[in-house]
């Protein structure tokens, strides 16, 4: 299959299957992009999510552009991005035309309770998959714990947490003389 078409359809599927925010797309990307297609590694995916947090725009779009660009340059980035947004445009337009009370349907609310319960587990699985490569020593473990609690308890902005952690990482490496 044409590479750009492959990028488009893969991300189209991801867009159509992502319920509830950018992080819900992580387990789907791990399966499709990392395991099935080999376009990126789990670590790269983690990096792209973090960069997507502190660059402008929607995280899912940023991640799609990143993977597409890395695999096939600027056109690849655009193909992946169009893929991820197309299902939204189609579905929302249909709902806006015919089903403005969609969110109030009891069946939708029940289905979403089920989906959210499932998404908890899928995101947990995604986190378990990458934590070995991210938490490699004491400083990185401390950064993980600090970011988790600062985000959960004080609701600190993810972009600030990512930037500060990067600076701390830089400081640690420098203090240790750039080795390891």
């Amino acid at each position, binding site marked *: 299959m044409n590479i750009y078409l492959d990028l488009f359809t893969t991300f189209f599927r991801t867009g159509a299957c992502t319920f509830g925010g950018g992080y819900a797309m992580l387990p789907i990307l791990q399966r499709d992009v990392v395991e099935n297609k080999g376009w990126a590694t789990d670590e790269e995916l983690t990096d792209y999510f973090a960069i997507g947090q502190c660059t402008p725009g929607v995280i899912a779009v940023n991640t799609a552009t990143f993977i597409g660009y*890395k695999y096939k340059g600027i056109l690849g980035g655009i193909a992946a991005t169009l893929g991820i947004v197309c299902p939204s445009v189609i579905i929302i337009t249909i709902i806006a035309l015919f089903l403005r009370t969609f969110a109030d349907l009891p069946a939708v609310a029940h289905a979403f309770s089920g989906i959210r319960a499932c998404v908890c587990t899928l995101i947990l699985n995604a986190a378990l998959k990458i934590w070995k490569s991210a938490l490699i020593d004491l400083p990185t473990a401390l950064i993980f714990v600090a970011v988790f609690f600062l985000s959960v308890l004080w609701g600190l902005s993810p972009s600030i947490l990512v930037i500060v952690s990067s600076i701390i990482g830089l400081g640690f490496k420098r203090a240790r003389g750039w080795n390891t």
Partner: protein
Amino acid sequence: MMLYLRLFAEFFCTGLFSIGGGLATIPFLQDIGQRTGWFTSHELANMIAISESTPGPMGVNMATYVGFTTAGIPGSIIATAGLITPSIAVIIIVASILRRFRDNKYVDAVFYGLRPASTGLIAAACWSVITISLLDIPGWQADGQLLTLFNWRCLLLAVAVFLLTRFKPTRKLHPVVWILLSAAAGVLFQL
């Protein structure tokens, strides 16, 4: 024509200045509604509810909906295009810089701190979905009973999915299979 251009420009700015995901676009959208009169805050609340209960990134869903409300189907496409254009430009610049400096020791050190932070944010996102779907914190605060803290049937479903994604015959199933089965379970058991 002017309306389309303005729609594109408004969403271009939203995409350029909202940092940190779909929810970050909401204050910008409120501001657009107030300044232009394209939609009321009540309509915006409806759009947020629908964006949250449909597949796809929430920011994109919002842009499509607002664009459609303002200028029909062309509006939905133009608003979405406006929202994603800054992302594409910025990410391509960042990615090309990273590609050039991949083996640089400073870049390497930045990623050393960035990766655990990213993992921490993923864990935090997981926790926030748990608090809204598996736990009933307001109910628990009201009566102090440990039994009301957990949303037992949803918890059971989450645990079942956790076990099945480790069980050898079902481990290789695509995540979407679990999402669809859970949606069906939600409707079936009135979760």
